[in-house]
């Protein structure tokens, strides 16, 4: 299984833990990752609120590069994945727009076709790598732990353009968690937004929105929160101290990228998975997980 790996701005400029854990785990599951040369921002969010054509162009540009490589396009970020999906959807429905976008791409000698196969990392793990391969690779099953799944808005909505999981009852990330030997579990706040995109305009509100979910996850007795979206992670992990400071109440909720947990479960070392970059209080849990 060979994929063109698209990191996107957030992952490649700050969420190193995510990228590291992906790069470390995928080969163990016979997934070959090929870097994409010359890629740029997917257009979301910078252009979505500013200029639609600029958004479509930015997005199509990266798709065009993947098409040039002749490989399926693998994204780690919900934002990028939706951005690409909507572009394929919009340009698919409007030949005029497609022509217009290709005119713009021609300058760089690129051509957007729209036939690319797009896949999100959790979709890849769930639908293509699959349960057998993952469970077979386990050396350190996460028995006795209960994790709350955080799929993130843009990976499940809007369903009408086609998303990797069900908009109201997403299950794939939960199943991925259970395949590691851990427990998942439905919780009412699961589909709620992390609020990260308000960072630009209303930072305090982000902390409030995110805090509500973290407190709920705590209240419902989970050992940690697991996501495959860098935006969600940024808020729940990186900003957890700020949330605690504002909310006053203790939260102390370990937050992981799924690929980090996956790495631990198949016997990789914390350093290989960039877990030392997680800002949430994960240490105690790591000791309990133990293993390599």
């Amino acid at each position, binding site marked *: 299984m060979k994929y063109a790996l698209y*990191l996107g*701005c957030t992952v*490649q*400029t*700050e969420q*190193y833990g995510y*990228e*590291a854990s992906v*790069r470390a785990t995928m080969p163990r599951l016979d997934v070959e990752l090929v*870097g*994409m*040369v*010359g*890629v*740029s*921002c997917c257009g979301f*969010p*910078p*252009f*979505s*609120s*500013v*200029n*639609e*054509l*600029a958004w479509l*162009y*930015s997005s199509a*540009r990266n798709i065009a590069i993947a098409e040039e490589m002749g490989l399926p396009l693998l994204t780690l970020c919900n934002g990028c994945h939706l951005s690409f999906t909507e572009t394929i959807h919009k340009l698919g429905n409007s030949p005029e727009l497609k022509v217009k976008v290709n005119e*713009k791409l021609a*300058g*760089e000698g690129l051509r957007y076709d729209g036939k690319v196969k797009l896949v999100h990392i959790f979709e890849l793990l769930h639908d293509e790598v699959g349960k057998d391969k993952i469970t077979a690779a386990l050396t350190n099953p996460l028995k006795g732990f209960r994790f709350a799944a955080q799929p993130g*808005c*843009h990976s499940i*909505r*809007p*369903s009408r353009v086609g998303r990797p999981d069900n*908009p*109201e009852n997403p299950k794939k990330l939960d199943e991925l968690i259970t395949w590691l030997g851990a427990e998942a579990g439905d919780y009412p706040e699961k*589909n*709620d*937004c992390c*609020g*990260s*995109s*308000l*960072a*630009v*305009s*209303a930072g305090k*509100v982000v902390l*409030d*929105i995110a805090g509500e979910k973290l407190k709920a996850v705590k209240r419902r007795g989970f050992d940690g929160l697991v996501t495959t979206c860098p935006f969600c992670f940024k808020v729940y992990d990186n900003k957890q101290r700020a949330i605690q400071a504002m909310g006053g109440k203790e939260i102390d909720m370990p937050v992981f990228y799924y690929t980090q947990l996956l790495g631990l479960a198949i016997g990789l070392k914390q350093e290989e998975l*960039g877990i*030392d*970059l*997680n*800002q949430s209080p*994960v*240490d105690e849990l790591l000791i309990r997980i133990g293993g390599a």
Partner: protein
Amino acid sequence: MTQRKPKMMDKVNAETCDQCGKCPSSCPVTVRIEGFNPRQIIAKVALGKEAELMKSQVLWTCTSCLKCKERCPEEISPYDVILALRRIAINLELPHPEGYDESVKAVVETGVVQQPQLVRTRNKERKDRKSMGLPPAEKPRDMTMYTKTLRGILEEDEL
């Protein structure tokens, strides 16, 4: 009463709204920010009050969680209506959070919203891509052409 609708407001079919209230009750912001209510936004668009909306600050407080778009029984997307209004507002150079201009500038000039950061570990060490053993970050092959193209697009009148 009704003033000229910008072209990009054409396809939002706000007028078919039944005012059911499903969007605000799904919205994480309405409960937190006074005055932000997707149902009212749609109502005002239907009544031709776009101008009033574009001046309002709340226009910029949507989290893009997409629950309104997902659940609207009339297939109206308050989220897309809000994005459309934002684009017009920015196009008309009405007041908006400067964060948008910054990231647009960054992307246009460097291809990414920000340069690779030095990030801290839990025990306060600083790490970059290199020290993480990660390959250098990517950027457009022909940066000048890329920038030129994007500038060109941004200068076109979308309205």
